[in-house]
């Protein structure tokens, strides 16, 4: 910021000493090195400047001081009671989840015959046919995409070998993924996340572990028939329906962009708004911890 002088209200402010706005910027650490040098020279030579800086710091400290008589109030019980008294129409409701549908056997057969998916499927046990029936493509714009791209999910239980994700998994199971990205125009980016029965979004790729970060899509390798992603990821999944979604895109997306879209269009049949995006959804049922499969 430019050094301003003479904006103080005392007669001394008519000299070339920095004005109050400049000193406020200095107290905030928002001046350039050359301005800092000029201000520090003024501080060394002017009692008025020293006094003003001390006063500005004191004002700042006063404003930052806690207000214990106010801050000690715990509002949570009052707010909970107030929410309980709200008319039911004003209470939060879970976003409407679209009615789930299953692909017909015929459509499943078409999918199974599609090259990209088939490449993944061929290595799988017969149980995979059930998986395929649960695979849904939410993006109607790209039947070609369904043909060439897709993810396969594997369930990893403690002490057991990974096996393809079936209709059920345990809450404590981890998930491992592989992807296919073939065809004349392979996708450039991928995100994999899951929405559990509580509506919570759990991120697998990219990893989203720290608040305040906003990780972006995973860059993809083109021409990959079965590329394994490296991590087994465990999340605290709520019992009930789990939708695992793979979002293939031409452009990188961020976690917050996708979550903003999910908040408005949470249903798995919603079309992703990004150009040529392809969303694959795999459904499974999360069993409570310790439940027998």
């Amino acid at each position, binding site marked *: 910021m430019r050094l301003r002088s003479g904006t103080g209200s005392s007669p001394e402010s008519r000299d070339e000493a920095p004005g109050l706005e400049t000193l406020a910027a200095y*107290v905030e650490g928002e001046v350039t090195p050359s301005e800092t040098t000029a201000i520090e020279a003024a501080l060394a030579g002017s009692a008025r400047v020293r006094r003003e800086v001390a006063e*500005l710091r004191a*004002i700042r400290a006063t404003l930052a001081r806690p207000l214990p008589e106010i*801050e000690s*109030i715990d509002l949570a019980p009052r707010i909970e009671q107030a929410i309980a008294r709200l008319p039911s129409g004003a209470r939060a409701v879970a976003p409407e989840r679209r009615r789930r549908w299953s692909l017909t056997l015929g459509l499943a057969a078409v999918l199974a015959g599609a090259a990209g998916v088939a490449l993944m499927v061929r290595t799988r046990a017969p149980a995979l046919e059930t998986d395929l029936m649960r695979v849904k493509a939410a993006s109607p714009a790209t039947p070609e995409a369904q043909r060439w791209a897709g993810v396969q999910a594997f369930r990893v239980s403690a002490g057991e070998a990974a096996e393809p994700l079936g209709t059920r998994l345990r809450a404590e199971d981890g998930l491992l993924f592989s992807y296919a990205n073939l065809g004349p125009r392979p996708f450039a980016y991928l995100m994999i996340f899951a929405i559990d029965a509580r509506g919570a979004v759990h991120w697998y790729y990219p990893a989203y572990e720290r608040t305040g970060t906003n990780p972006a899509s995973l860059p993809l390798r083109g021409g990959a028939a079965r590329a394994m992603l490296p991590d087994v990821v465990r999340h605290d999944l709520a019992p009930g329906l789990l939708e695992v979604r793979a979002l293939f895109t031409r452009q990188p997306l961020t976690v*917050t962009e996708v979550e*903003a879209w999910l908040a408005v269009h949470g249903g798995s049949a919603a079309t992703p708004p990004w150009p040529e995006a392809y969303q694959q959804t795999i459904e499974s049922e999360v069993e409570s911890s310790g439940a027998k499969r």
Partner: protein
Amino acid sequence: MPADARSDDDLMLLARANVPAAFSALVARHQRRALRVAGRQLGPGAITAADVVQNTFIDIYRALPRYQPRGRFGSYLFRILLNQCRIAQRAARIEARHRQRTDTALAVAPPHESAVLARERERDTEAALARLGAKLRDVVVLRYTGELSYDEIAATLEIPTGTVKRRLFDAMKKLRTLMEPT
């Protein structure tokens, strides 16, 4: 993942999915700072500040179905809080005018000179703050009392970051001038 470790956006999504503990966790996380900001905005009177913060959280709860998780819950919270403060300030002004008329009619209003003389620095600051325009007061309170970053303040007030800085330095200059002994 425990509620404490979840982001604000995650908690909002969970609250929307009817997980009551999620909204309580949000209240617990933000109420202290919200109370402090409301306390500074409104001046003495803990009950008013508490009411304002409570109304703020109720507004947020009502708006859960429309909330868009963009990693800016803090700005969203303080935008609603500032609106609630303005509503409370308007109500207080109306009440004060009414009381003044009543007091004049009954001729029972005691003079307050002694209280003015007894002010300490804190009260000088409060008084100066009350005389600042809302635009400058919002910025200085969000910055120093709410401890928001420039970017968070910019998002809260929907103004450019450069404007935030200009208003902050202007506010400090005015506060200092207002507090200068005459």
